[in-house]
């Protein structure tokens, strides 16, 4: 018993080190290097430089907005799909699951080349404008979010008696849109939030697609900064890490805004 507990603690410590050592190292590097006699004094100068840079805020803001839009599009697309599949065509579930897993198989570089080939010429030359390119970026990110968002929504639906809730709402006169928005969505909100977190994290750090579509996103900015400066990229990494967490907490706070509890039906 005691041995097992020690083993668990060892695993926990190794896991914690695995996550936190790179973070601490990055933080340490972001304060200037090397420290001590003959070196430099640790300072937050690089943070100040980064935070005063309009490019940093511009790219982070752009990625955040694109991330929020991607989340909305992804939910709008996948919630009705997962709901309909569970309710009406459960036999199609493996097919839909396979389709949503494709982004794991198809690399982003293939995806972006496909988009460029298709949408850089008539009849839909979307890459000709910034707005069109941003639309393509959102479309690509929506596809990238499929595996995370679909699984999160599907798990939420599985934990909810959607059939009874749907039928109860129907018998009370509700149509499909109202059922989905007023009855189903609030009951899978927690599951959707977890999908939204992952989507936001992916969008904030994504480089390949944003770079090929020449979008002023955070990933390409970070890469460019890494090519031209030594310590600022480390500072940006720490700042973006903190801001991403802050954004997630905000989403969670907004999303959990009501007194809700998931799927409690049946006898108590």
């Amino acid at each position, binding site marked *: 018993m005691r041995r097992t507990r020690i083993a668990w603690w060892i695993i926990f410590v190794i896991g914690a080190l695995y996550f936190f050592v790179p973070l601490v190292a990055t933080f340490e590097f972001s304060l200037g290097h090397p420290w001590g006699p003959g070196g430099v004094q640790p300072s937050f100068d690089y943070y100040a430089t980064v935070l005063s840079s309009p490019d940093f805020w511009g790219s982070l803001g752009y990625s955040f907005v694109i991330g929020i839009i991607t989340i909305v599009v992804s939910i709008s697309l996948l919630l009705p799909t997962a709901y309909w599949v569970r309710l009406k065509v459960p036999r199609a579930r493996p097919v839909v699951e396979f389709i949503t897993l494709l982004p794991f198989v198809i690399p982003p570089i293939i995806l972006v080349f496909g988009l460029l080939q298709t949408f850089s010429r008539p009849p839909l030359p979307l890459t000709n404008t910034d707005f069109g390119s941003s639309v393509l970026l959102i479309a690509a990110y929506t596809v990238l979010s499929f595996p995370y968002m679909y699984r999160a929504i599907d798990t939420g639906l599985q934990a*909810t*008696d959607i059939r*009874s*809730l749907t*039928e*109860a*709402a*129907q*018998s*009370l*006169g*509700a*149509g499909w849109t*109202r059922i989905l928005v007023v*009855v189903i969505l*609030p*009951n899978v909100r927690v599951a959707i939030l977890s999908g939204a977190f992952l989507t936001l994290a992916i969008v904030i750090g994504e480089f390949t697609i944003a770079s090929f579509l020449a979008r002023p996103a955070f990933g390409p900015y970070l890469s460019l900064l890494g090519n031209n400066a030594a310590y600022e990229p480390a500072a940006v990494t720490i700042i973006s890490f903190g801001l991403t967490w802050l954004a997630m907490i905000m989403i969670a706070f907004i999303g959990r805004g*009501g*007194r*809700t*509890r*998931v*799927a*409690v*039906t*049946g*006898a*108590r």
Partner: protein
Amino acid sequence: MSFLTLTGVQKHFPGGVVAVEDFDLDAVRGEFVSFLGPSGCGKTTTLRMIAGFEKPTGGTITVDGKDITYRPPNQRNVGMVFQSYALFPNMSVADNIGFGLKVRKRPKSDIDRRVGELVELMHLEGRADRFPWQLSGGQQQRVALARALAIEPQVLLLDEPLSALDAKIRIVLRKEIRSIQRQLGITTVYVTHDQEEALSLSDRVVVMSEGHIEQIGTPSEIYNFPSTAFVASFVGTLNLVNAGVIDAASGRLSIDGQEVRTSKVITDAGGDGRVTLAVRPEGISLGEGDSGSNRVHGSVEDINFLGSIVRIRIRLGDEVAGRPPTVVALDTFNEPHLALPAVGESVTISFPPEACFVLGAARDNATASAEVGAEV
């Protein structure tokens, strides 16, 4: 004047599965009809077709003269109460009850007033702001009933609403459902596999088996005059006795060499001239009974006190050539001064010919005898 009418309603699922076959029902306005039957008999499927959740593959369903057979469920004005309550977990009690009225875009003042009325009717005072998970099972089902009634539906459908509740609450809610149904005069269809529920609640009971109707009748008709072997064996408890036919025209039979009579002509004896005779335990009395009663002799095998009644099992004969002896049970009301025979004592029991139902050709005698214990 018929209010809810089902005519030749059928439901065939892909793969040749027949869930419901030629279902005909006429329910008058304000009637309480129960669908009673074992699992898989098609009672819930029929209810779901009335609600619009299943499309019939044949027949028509009308409410107040309007054909609703293929109308979407949200355009039927039919209230439904589910076994699992199906309350919206994200909404308070008041919001659940008022949901249907919001959908109908009623003014907020009307919704508040109606919700208040139903909260009071369902004894949910002080719980309007709670969420479903903060309520007991009985309270949740009250909310579900209130929610279904809020929209003033033309027909109220209840799909085994009490089966997830414990026995005491079930009985209390059963009475309340009946009382509210009478008070509001709402046409109600109630699905259950619990015969006590069906018999105690309903104006009429539809007994179903394997997708078709076995019998439609008042609870008294169903219990006292079952029209098929299935109804006789499914509703109430029953002695099943293997009997030989002496004279089919006059209804004379022999049980282990003792002659009894039925009030009907026997038309369905097996090739061996034997039938299964059914007698309810409460139809049999200790003693000689009235003149004209069937009288048979036997010995007391055991006596069971079941609270308000005492069940006495009587052995009518001896085991012959491997065939188990015929045993019947009789029920008598328990009272402090009840004189009971001793186990092993010889007794005479009696039952009127009208209390006997012939349920077709006899099954194997050993099986029939064994079922006496199992059925009663």
